[in-house]
């Protein structure tokens, strides 16, 4: 190793030292600690603090509320991501066809994405109000109890979340579409491809990779989602909008059951990591064949 290389290695270590320290102390250490907590029965209010092994997990395995939350998380994630991707691509394509008003459309979309989820939640809570909400006023006599009806509450939350996060997919696709050189389309036209043909055989495949990335981001975000359902419905009615994160948070901080709540958190952690790993393998496989 040359002196220059050794100096560079030293410099590199110095450069990453603060990061390693911060991540180690505030992400890795708590990540391990939560595993330890999940193996305990820990309730500060009652001075309960004892090792319990896998008791919490054994209970979760047969807990109906846990499985209901898992189901809700799955439905929310799949529904949300599917809608976002489809609508995002459609929005990007539609904006691209416009000559004027692109900036306005992009600004509005970005605004919805940039504002805090709590603001969007309050916005929709008011829109969904059973008597004074804009949606029910428009529906008149066919008014629906959006946040109170167990069959409608989850779709209502999904819709609010899609509204807020679809712009992310739209912007990514739009940027990618802009990067497609015009001669690609010209060549397709010369070959006699119609609009629809161009769409399916050229545009969408070129969008493929970025869509996969966008889907990855959005899936992970949807699995971890907390703000929107916590503020909009609190997990109700009757737990129909309670995802695993809300269940974990309620267990942790509504009743300070730190051991049990940590067990639910660990399940979320493992789930998210598993999904991330699966996606990354897909991405790498795609990169190899592309």
């Amino acid at each position, binding site marked *: 190793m040359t002196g220059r*290389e050794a100096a*560079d*290695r030293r*410099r*590199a270590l110095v*450069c*990453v030292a*603060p990061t*390693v320290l911060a991540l180690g102390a*505030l*992400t890795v250490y*708590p*990540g391990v600690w*939560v595993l330890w907590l999940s193996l305990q029965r820990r309730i500060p209010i009652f001075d309960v603090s004892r090792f319990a092994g896998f008791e919490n997990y054994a209970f979760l395995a047969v807990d109906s509320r846990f499985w209901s939350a898992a189901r809700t998380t799955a439905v929310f994630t799949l529904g949300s991501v599917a809608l976002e991707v489809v609508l995002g691509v459609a*929005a990007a394509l*539609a*904006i691209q*066809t*416009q000559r004027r008003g692109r*900036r306005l*459309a*992009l*600004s*509005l*979309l*970005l*605004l919805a994405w*940039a504002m*805090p*989820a*709590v*603001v969007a939640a*309050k*916005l929709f809570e*008011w829109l969904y*109000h059973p008597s*004074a909400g*804009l949606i029910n006023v428009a529906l008149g006599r066919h008014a629906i109890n959006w946040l109170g009806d167990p069959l409608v509450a989850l779709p209502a939350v999904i819709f609010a979340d899609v*509204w807020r996060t679809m712009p992310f997919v739209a912007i990514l696709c739009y*940027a*990618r579409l802009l990067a497609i050189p015009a001669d690609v389309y010209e060549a397709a036209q010369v070959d006699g491809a119609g*609009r629809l043909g161009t769409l399916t055989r050229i545009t969408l495949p070129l969008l493929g990779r*970025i869509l996969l*990335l966008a889907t990855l981001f959005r899936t*992970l975000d949807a*699995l971890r989602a*907390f703000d929107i359902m*916590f503020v909009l419905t609190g997990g109700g009615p009757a737990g129909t909008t309670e995802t695993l*994160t809300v269940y974990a*948070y309620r267990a*942790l*901080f509504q009743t300070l059951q*730190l051991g049990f*709540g*940590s067990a639910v*958190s*660990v399940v*979320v*952690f493992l789930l*998210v990591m598993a999904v991330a790993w699966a996606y990354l393998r897909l991405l790498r496989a795609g990169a190899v064949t592309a």
Partner: protein
Amino acid sequence: MRTRLRALADIAVILALVAYAIPFFWQLLTSFKPEAELLRVPPLLPSRLTLSHYKVVITQSLMPQALGNSLGIATLTTLLSLAAGVPAAYAVARLPLPGKRFLLLAIVASTAFPQIATVSPLYLLMRALELRDTWTGLVLVHASFALPLTIWLLAGFVREIPIEAEEAASVDGAGIISLFRWVIVPLLAPGLASTALLTFLFSWNEFLFAYTFTVSEASRTIPVALALFPGVFEVPWGDIAAASMLASLPPVVIVIALQRFLVRGLVAGAVKE
């Protein structure tokens, strides 16, 4: 065929504009509607506009302090995150780092980390260090959460810097600090701006940690103040609408004035590997 597809696209754009503009405008309208008319719809439009909700929010609620807290915490988070992230990104992109693959893996894994997983141990940690209800505690947590994405983005931007610029500087005998100060950071400026904006927005919008670690108006941020907006038995929709408008101000400013950087940051995060 072409015109029909064009018409379809036009309709789609109009629908999108309507779907995204109406909720904002309805909330804006609600914030100016007199209290008595809020629940009596239709008619949708108010008979007169009133500033009473804004008055309540500004004089009687915690929103002004929350605004200050959010501004301070988001700014500090951004500064801290960049201060630690720029050197790390440079090291990852350009220097022979021992264990680089491992670090990269850790960084990528951290971007997927769910906040709920660490909130209970962090709660105990904050309690032990007496950092609850302080700016410090929240800034540290936010910065550590934003770091992985910051490094990922910045590494991509660093790789865009032509290596010749660095080589020229080191030929001139520049040490690493001068290298950063005169070459890296200026060339990185647009990428820094994008990353800074994304980090600022993340910290501004963050809810779970802020809700758990803030106690009083000493450190409560905007999203928490909005979520905990006090009513008596019933919900003060007009006041909440006014508070929502105030809470959206920085994002609005960023989107309108700094849109270019924001989009660049978003795209860079997805396109760069």
